[in-house]
């Protein structure tokens, strides 16, 4: 029969019109909230789909980059663990088509076997790729504008065991051009998206037959990537199998039997034995003899000179025990040529192996210790390592070295020595002396020899295999699928992002809902009074109202879930089309997790219920007699009013004073690093203070009328005064309206003012462009120094055209793009190695934050300061560090170096909004120490005279075409990054604007309700002679005040909050769109007020008077 539930149901049914608005608010709030969460679901699911497309069935991968191992290793491990493993050769190259008309850089060129396609989600239609053919992915085919049977030219670097950075490395024949025919074009599902880097952007992929590519690159039987398919295994099992099957050849270690020398020698085609090899060789056998043979440009005694000689640094038996570091043993041939004898002092010049391949000749003097005959152990031509371009040369003229040979310095006698003895060393120095002169990042030994009488090659090979961790030479499996899923799981939280964007819209919907519900309850004040009079407790009445509210909130939540689906679809459409700059992909598909819908609905229900609870909690606290006597009339005592006024005044004063102090501190105190935060905090305080001041003002106006003297009353009592008095009559409603409009305009203005434009101030060193004209990326590394004459000559760059041009080159250790363009969480960000001095002397970029102890006057020098031996200091872009890496200044990140050792990178500084986004910058010296095989530079910041910028761009692009140079103006690059932030801000502005319009609709509701409640008194005013038009103006003016006060408080506070942004370089204040938004709100508020006033004052007002 009759129960509380019945009463709730009856009330819901009876007051459905009043509840409709509340329900609408609940639906909007719920739809926006759930929609935002669904956007998060959809982006995450889309990223997961893309991640699985790029990996296919791949679970683990072994990527050794520039180190090539036996491709047979794949079959050996696969046979052991019974899981498909396929070998690949993967190199980065460029592609061109139609005579260079179509061009693509950063193309992943892969040599694959048929097993590769078995890992695809969908196996392509072709059975195999014929030799001389290529399979392209859709993106590359589109970029090149080619179809099946068209020809394309791929330029790929030829793998070189010796780093191209080494001065001795040949510069010729560094790349190979492959003309191939397009056999097929594969879709994303057919593994076209294959790639190991976490990004939602598809790479350019070209696939060729493995054997054919190996042959073209002179690396027959070699691979540098293994892909492991699905199966019952894990990383540990794979590592065990790898340790069992790997061979020293996989680490590029060679063992040579030297019968003449009665020795077995460890050497490497990389020339220098790296640390891991050296350590393993030490343990491989007893009494290993270490050798370091290097190339001396010149050995001189007075005017006599011996050009271009091998010199071996060794111990016994080549050198007597106790030989000093400044002593040299000359071979008889060299001694004769120099006319040297024991005790003479000779000078030796050689090329120093520094960070880059810059040719720096150094000299050292030695005292001749003794002369040895060119026989026996001193006539051993195998002491010379396999310098590419020299070992196989028939004569000196055929030498193909990485440095210029002065052929006129080579005499027929020298030529004869080469003919007879090839690279047999002409001199010997102590190992310690040799390592001091020639030790470099690649290693400090060229071979180690063991006595063949006491060991065998097999024993040494086994010992190395046992002693050496394959990971120390980049042979280790990584759980790439697990990493990809982790990158997706930690990806940009679009759910949270869109909740943030939609925050004001949600708040506006909830406030509107609260306002409407409160108005509804106020209308039912007598009903509440009656229930209280009949003995209902306030709690019971509140529960009754909450019962109604919860039903509305529940229905709103459920309908909102449906609305949320459409809202999410709309947002995804926006992201894939209108706001594509923010995500860089259109591959976003709607995806809803059932639990998200449930959680979202419950959350919306709870939020709406709390909102309603807040709205009704005060309504039932008023005494029944008041509710019965006065209905909805807001009533309070003078004493209560005085207390409220005083409280509001105190809050206003405190907030505004604190705000002024914060502005003062930001401007004149501190180091300016936290100024932006202080200004924003001050803006927030001004907003709160402004709202509190508005509350105090409303109280004051209300009370002031009671204290006026007759004269004051006569002066103040006019139509405007009456309008203002009316506005303060419903103080809470008026304050709610002001608050809504103030908060909305604050957000819209504050957000709008943060839009960035890189064009402004792009030339300044302090700007996000660093003041550079261009940023360049190459596909193939550039080992030459483009700031030097030799480097420019190598690329045929004209001095005139390059006048005034200087470059800051960056070494690149590839990793995940940590810029805002990558939606995945960067697991190992890309590292850039730079000479910090080049940036410091330019004072480039503005630092947003520095770690403690970093000199703010020379922040780039912090890269040189070793924090401690295990940590490398790094600087990055503030946004990348915070958002893409999820770190902050002072934090560390773990990296794995080329030898498999984990090291830490500590972030010591962050530059503000720059083109450096996506990377971490470290000292070049530190980068090459950790990744010695990374050769050359692949990124450049370029200074060029503004008036010749276009000419410089064209010249450089043409000269470095084969390296795949892509030059972009720094302003354009920065704008591409800014577009992400600006797009997000636009999204926020659009949704915030919608919230503001909803807020102005709330104003209309307030006007309507106010006027409807006052129809009687307005009728009375008409009865005493006021014209209808005057009354309408009265109503509009009194509510117009609320609109103007709300907007003024919000806009002024926002301007204070974003003052640093307004004054910062690159700031682009969208005055137009802001003015339009605020104008729209003003007009919308005015229209709603006019409509509401007209509606409420329609018909015969006098009827209202009669009904009183």
């Amino acid at each position, binding site marked *: *029969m*009759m*129960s*509380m539930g*019945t*009463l709730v149901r*009856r*009330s819901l*049914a*009876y*007051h459905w019109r009043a509840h409709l608005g509340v329900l609408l608010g609940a639906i909007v709030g719920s739809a926006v909230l759930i929609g935002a969460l669904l956007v998060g679901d959809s982006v995450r699911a889309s990223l997961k789909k893309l991640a699985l497309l790029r990996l296919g069935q791949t679970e683990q991968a072994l990527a050794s980059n520039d180190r090539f191992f036996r491709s047979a290793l794949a079959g050996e491990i696969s046979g052991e663990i019974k899981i498909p493993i396929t070998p690949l050769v993967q190199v980065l190259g460029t592609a061109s088509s139609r005579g260079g008309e179509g061009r693509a850089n950063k193309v992943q060129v892969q040599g694959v076997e048929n097993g590769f396609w078995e890992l695809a989600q969908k196996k392509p239609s072709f059975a195999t790729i014929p030799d001389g053919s290529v399979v392209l992915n859709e993106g590359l085919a589109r970029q090149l504008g080619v179809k099946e049977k068209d020809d394309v030219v791929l330029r790929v670097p030829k793998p070189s065991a010796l780093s191209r950075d080494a001065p001795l490395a040949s510069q010729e024949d560094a790349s190979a051009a492959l003309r191939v025919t397009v056999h097929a074009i594969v879709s994303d599902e057919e593994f076209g998206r294959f790639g190991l880097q976490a990004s939602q952007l598809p790479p350019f992929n070209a696939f060729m037959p493995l054997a054919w590519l190996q042959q073209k690159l002179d690396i027959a039987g070699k691979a540098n990537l293994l892909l492991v398919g699905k199966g019952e295994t894990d990383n540990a099992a794979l590592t065990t199998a790898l340790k069992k099957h790997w061979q020293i050849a996989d680490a590029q270690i060679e063992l040579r039997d030297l019968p003449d020398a009665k020795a077995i020698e460890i050497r490497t085609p990389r020339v220098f034995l790296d640390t891991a090899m050296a350590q393993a060789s030490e343990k491989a056998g007893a009494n290993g003899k270490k050798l370091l043979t290097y190339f001396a440009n010149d050995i001189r005694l007075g005017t006599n000179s011996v050009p271009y000689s091998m010199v071996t640094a060794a111990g016994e038996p080549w050198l007597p025990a106790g030989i000093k570091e400044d002593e040299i043993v000359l071979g008889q041939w060299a001694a004769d040529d120099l006319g040297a004898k024991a005790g003479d002092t000779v000078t030796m010049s050689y090329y120093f192996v520094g960070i880059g391949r810059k040719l720096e000749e150094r000299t050292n003097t030695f005292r001749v210790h003794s002369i040895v005959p060119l026989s026996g152990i001193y006539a051993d031509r195998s002491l010379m390592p396999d310098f590419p371009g020299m070992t196989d040369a028939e004569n000196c003229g055929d030498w193909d070295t990485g440095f210029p040979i002065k052929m006129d310095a080579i005499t027929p006698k020298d030529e004869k020595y080469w003919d007879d003895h090839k690279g047999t060393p002409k001199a010997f120095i102590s190992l310690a002396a040799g390592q001091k002169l020639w030790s470099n990042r690649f290693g400090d030994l060229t071979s180690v020899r063991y006595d063949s009488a006491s060991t065998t090659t097999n024993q040494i090979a086994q010992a190395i295999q046992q002693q050496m961790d394959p990971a120390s030479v980049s042979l280790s499996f990584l759980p790439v699928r697990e990493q990809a899923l982790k990158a997706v799981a930690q990806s940009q939280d679009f759910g949270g992002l869109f909740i943030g964007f939609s925050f004001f819209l949600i708040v506006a919907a909830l406030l509107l809902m609260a306002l409407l519900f409160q108005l509804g309850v106020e209308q039912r004040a*007598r*009903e509440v*009074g*009656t*229930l*209280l*009079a*009949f*003995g*209902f*407790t*306030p709690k*019971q009445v509140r529960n009754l109202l909450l019962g109604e509210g919860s039903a509305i909130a529940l229905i709103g939540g459920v309908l909102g879930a449906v609305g949320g689906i459409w809202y999410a679809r709309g947002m995804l459409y926006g992201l894939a089309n209108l706001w594509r700059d923010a995500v860089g992909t259109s591959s976003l598909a709607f995806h809803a997790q059932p639990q998200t819908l449930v959680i979202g609905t419950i959350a919306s229900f709870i939020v709406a219920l709390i909102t309603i609870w807040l709205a009704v909690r005060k309504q039932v606290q008023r*005494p*029944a*007699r008041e509710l*019965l*006597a006065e209905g909805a009339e807001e009533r309070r*005592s*003078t*004493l209560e009013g005085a207390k409220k006024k005083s409280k509001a005044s105190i809050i206003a004063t405190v907030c505004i004073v604190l705000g002024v102090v914060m502005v003062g501190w930001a401007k004149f105190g501190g180091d300016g690093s936290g100024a932006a935060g202080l200004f924003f905090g001050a803006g927030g305080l001004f907003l709160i203070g402004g709202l509190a001041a508005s509350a105090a003002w409303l109280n004051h106006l209300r009370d002031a009328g*009671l*204290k006026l003297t007759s004269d004051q009353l006569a002066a103040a009592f006019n139509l405007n005064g009456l309008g203002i008095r009316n506005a303060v009559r419903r103080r809470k409603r008026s304050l709610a309206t002001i608050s809504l409009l103030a908060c909305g305009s604050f957000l819209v203005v504050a957000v709008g003012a943060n839009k960035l434009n890189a064009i402004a101030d792009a030339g300044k060193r302090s700007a996000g462009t660093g003041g550079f004209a261009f940023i360049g990326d190459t596909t193939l590394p550039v080992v030459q120094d483009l700031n030097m004459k030799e480097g420019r000559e190598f690329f045929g760059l004209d001095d005139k055209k390059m006048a005034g041009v200087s470059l800051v080159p960056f070494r690149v250790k590839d990793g995940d793009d940590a810029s805002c363009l990558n939606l995945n969480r960067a697991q190992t960000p890309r590292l850039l190695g730079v000479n910090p001095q080049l940036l410091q002397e330019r004072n480039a970029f503005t630092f947003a934050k520095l770690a403690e102890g970093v000199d703010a006057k020379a922040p780039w020098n912090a890269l040189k300061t070793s924090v401690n031996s295990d940590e490398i200091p790094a600087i990055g872009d503030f946004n990348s560090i915070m958002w893409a890496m999820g770190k902050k200044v002072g934090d560390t990140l773990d990296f794995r170096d080329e030898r498999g050792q984990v090291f830490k990178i500590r972030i010591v500084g962050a530059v503000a909004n720059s083109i450096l986004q996506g990377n971490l910058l470290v000292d070049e010296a530190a980068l090459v120490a950790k990744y010695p095989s990374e050769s050359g530079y692949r990124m450049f910041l370029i200074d060029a005279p503004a008036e010749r910028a276009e000419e410089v761009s064209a010249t450089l692009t043409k000269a470095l075409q084969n390296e795949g140079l892509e030059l972009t103006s720094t302003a354009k690059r920065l704008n591409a990054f800014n577009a992400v932030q600006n797009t997000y801000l636009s999204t926020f502005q659009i949704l915030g604007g919608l919230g503001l319009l909803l807020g102005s609709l709330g104003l209309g509701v307030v006007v309507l309700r106010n006027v409807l409640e006052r129809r009687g008194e307005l009728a009375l005013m008409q009865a005493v002679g006021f014209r209808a038009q005057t009354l309408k103006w009265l109503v509009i003016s009194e509510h117009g005040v609320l609109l103007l006060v709300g907007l003024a408080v919000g806009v002024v506070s926002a301007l204070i909050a974003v003052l640093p942004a307004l004054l910062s370089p690159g700031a682009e204040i969208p005055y137009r769109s802001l003015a339009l938004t605020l104008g729209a709100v003003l007009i919308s508020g005015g229209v709603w007020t006019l409509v509401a006033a007209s509606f409420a004052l329609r018909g015969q007002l006098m009827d209202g008077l009669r009904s009183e």
Partner: protein
Amino acid sequence: MGTQAPLLRLEGLSKQYPSTEGAAPLYILKEVTLDIAQGEAVAIIGPSGSGKSTLLNVLGTLDKPTSGKVTFAGRDVTQLDELALAALRNREIGFIFQSHHLLPQCTVLENVLVPTLASGSTRGTETVARAKRLLDRVGLSPRSNHQPGQLSGGERQRVAVVRALINQPKLVLADEPTGALDRVSADKLAQLLVELNKEEGVTLILVTHALDLAKKMGRILELQDGKLVEKKS
């Protein structure tokens, strides 16, 4: 009145309202002392603004006196907290307002039963039967499933009377119950109140400025300058 303890006793009851700053407080009731016995029908009359409704609110525990004591069935209600007062109002007091204050969303029968929801314990068939019997008594049986909006002013007020009686209160307070009715309806309602007072044995205190209605009550008190003066009926 006999020696039986009064149902309601007012002792030195005063009520004043604070005025705007500087002005003297406004005294509505001054040292009112009164005993009302169980089953009495009392009319309180007086000019507009004399404090009749204020007195009724104090008697109905909807307002608190500034000073003095109100004893209801032997309990000093001025010492009770809000929850106890709500329970007292629910079980012991019925209200009839000048405006019926029926819930428009509920039927006639449901409106009558609304006060029973507050106690949450006695909404059995017996209560419903009592509601129906009372509605039948006031001639509204055929209208029990109608909405208040479908009733005349007099009918609505009769529903309000039944609602006031549903919890079998000891005291019914009526504030200008006929004020919004036409003369015929007013007379009918007055007659009904008198009859129910006798039938239900409920004490009735009625505030009115209609002298003819007051005269139908057993006792008439006039509020003059904040004090109650006994009038001959």
